């Protein structure tokens, strides 16, 4: 299995704060990779660096064999890397369908058809004529997922796809990811929901204070000493239980 996405020794500082330190990760083609770590460990920063929203101070990012360090977000997108945001970003004054069309501008003919397909896939097709600003939080997450997918990216970076939504929706999202992965799409997922990550990912990388402390299959990683330490000594199974409970009762 070849490596599709790779970062090498990435450094990123904000003022005096070192957000990423010699960060090296690998995502195998056709896999679902997880990226976990305590708050502030640099996960979203790494996403920002990969997708061009932040400039790396040092280090490289590679897509297959191609170096893509520090290129602009629209070029990153054109190369086939799709990305969602922790705080869901949609276009509120456009309708759901129009949101989809912004992303699918490359394939002109049948754009609407493809957009509709994706909307059906995530389950919000009935809202296609509604203004995106009127959608609930969960629906917006689905919309964001849909419009990232409509451009048919090679690899999809998801930033907390299960954050703040109820359990049935989390399962729905996980099922979609599995479906797409079975069809060959690669995923890199940042998540705090341990159940979600462990159940879905082939490979998990753990970040702490901007560096990689462990990487490997979920079962191995979850019992790794360094990982447990990273979570401030908290038992990782406890953390799993906590986030599972919290998500059950989460409202929008």
């Amino acid at each position, binding site marked *: 299995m070849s490596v599709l996405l790779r970062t090498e020794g990435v450094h990123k500082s904000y003022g005096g704060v070192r957000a990423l330190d010699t960060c090296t990760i690998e995502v195998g083609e056709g896999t679902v990779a997880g990226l976990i770590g305590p708050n502030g460990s640099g996960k979203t920063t790494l996403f920002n660096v990969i*997708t*061009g*929203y932040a400039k790396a101070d040092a280090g490289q990012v590679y897509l297959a064999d191609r170096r893509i360090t520090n290129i*602009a*977000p*629209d070029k*990153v*997108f*054109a190369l086939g890397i799709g*990305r969602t*945001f922790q705080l869901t*970003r*949609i*276009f*509120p*004054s*456009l*309708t759901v*369908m*129009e949101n989809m*069309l*912004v*992303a699918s*501008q*490359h394939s002109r003919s049948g754009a*609407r*058809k493809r957009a*509709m397909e994706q909307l*059906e*896939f995530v*389950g*919000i*097709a*009935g*809202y*296609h*004529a*509604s*203004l995106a*600003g*009127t*959608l*609930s939080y*969960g*629906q917006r997450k689905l919309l964001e997922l849909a*419009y990232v997918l409509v*451009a048919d990216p090679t690899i999809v970076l998801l930033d907390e796809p299960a954050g703040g939504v*109820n359990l049935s*929706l989390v399962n729905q999202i996980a099922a979609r990811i599995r479906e797409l992965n079975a069809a060959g799409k690669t995923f890199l997922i940042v998540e705090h929901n341990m159940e979600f990550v462990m159940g879905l990912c082939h490979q998990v990388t753990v970040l702490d204070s901007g560096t990689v402390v462990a990487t490997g299959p979920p079962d191995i990683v979850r019992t790794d000493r360094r990982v447990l330490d990273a979570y401030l000594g908290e038992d990782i199974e406890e953390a799993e239980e906590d986030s599972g409970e919290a998500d059950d009762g989460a409202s*929008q």
Partner: protein
Amino acid sequence: MASPKILSRFSGLTGLRLAGIVVLLAGALAFPVLFPNPVLTNYGVFALIFVAVASAWNFFSGFSGYISLGNAVFFGSGAYALGIAARDWHVTGIGVFALLPLSAAVGALIAVPFGLIALRVRRHTFIVITIAVFFIFQLMAYNFSFTGGTTGLDAPFLPWAAQTYNNPFYYIALGCAVGAIVLSWLIRRSRFGLQLRAIRDDEDRARGLGVRAMRVKLSAFVLSGAVTGLVGGVWFFYLTQVQPPSGFDPLFDLSVVLMAFLGGLGTVSGPVLGALIIEPGQLYLTANTNGYISEILLGSLFLVAVLLMPRGIIPTGGEYIRRLTTRGRAAIPAAVPASQRAPASPGLRSDEGATREGDAGEGEGEAGGARRQAGKAL
């Protein structure tokens, strides 16, 4: 004469809307015939000039969210360009109208460097740059000798009868206005317009999805500049003169913004309505009261509009009407699982409806109701 059905399918407009537009157009065409009084046609000319200007302003600023307070730069430049051309090339009589494309070209040409500088910065700064460039142009008009300094420039004399002098200008202005409206409408329903509006909502995200933001913004800006410049040229010929404070009038942009805002930013008909309300009103006030009262009134009207109808007349009115007509009925069904979903085609057609102007308000009213009902589903 295209049959109503074909026209309807081509434009996406149906029934009542189409009929309404045809009626309005007919009325506008007949206006000088029905009301030949030069005082009234004068109102007409100015109103139409500002319909064009407001529409042009709106299809850039309203759609992209980059509020420009410097469109007077194009207006005045168009006027001055024609004045200079007519003087230096010794053009007189009817031939002057052949120069009009020049004013559009000048507007477009100025918009390119203007836009390249101004559109690189964020919105707050953009507004201020447009103000700064405006003042630079006004000052240049005062200081350069080829612009005639404080005296300004005169337009060539047109030997037309006083009683019907306004009428050709009326129809030219009508042409400009219709052109600007059609352009605005075409932009709004195009992919280009979609990208502009996406930029307005979240420029970074739009960029991240492949939208070439600078290219899109600059194109709209240049188009806006061209139309505004053209109308500036028309205005110059009509008034037969231009000076720095009239060609580059600080109140120009504020009035235009108010017109677009009153009618509804980001809609096609909003600026039209706003211009038709405010411009005649302003003219009337300046003619019949001392100029300062009209300033106070203009400012007050604006405050009232912003505080009571922040989205503008068209969207607010549209929502109000929709609320009246859909009272008691669920507007949009709750999200239905894919397996039980109705076939796609009805959805697609009603989606075209959603991109029509004015639907921003309507859609929100509907969806708002549906959201409240269906929000609990997820």
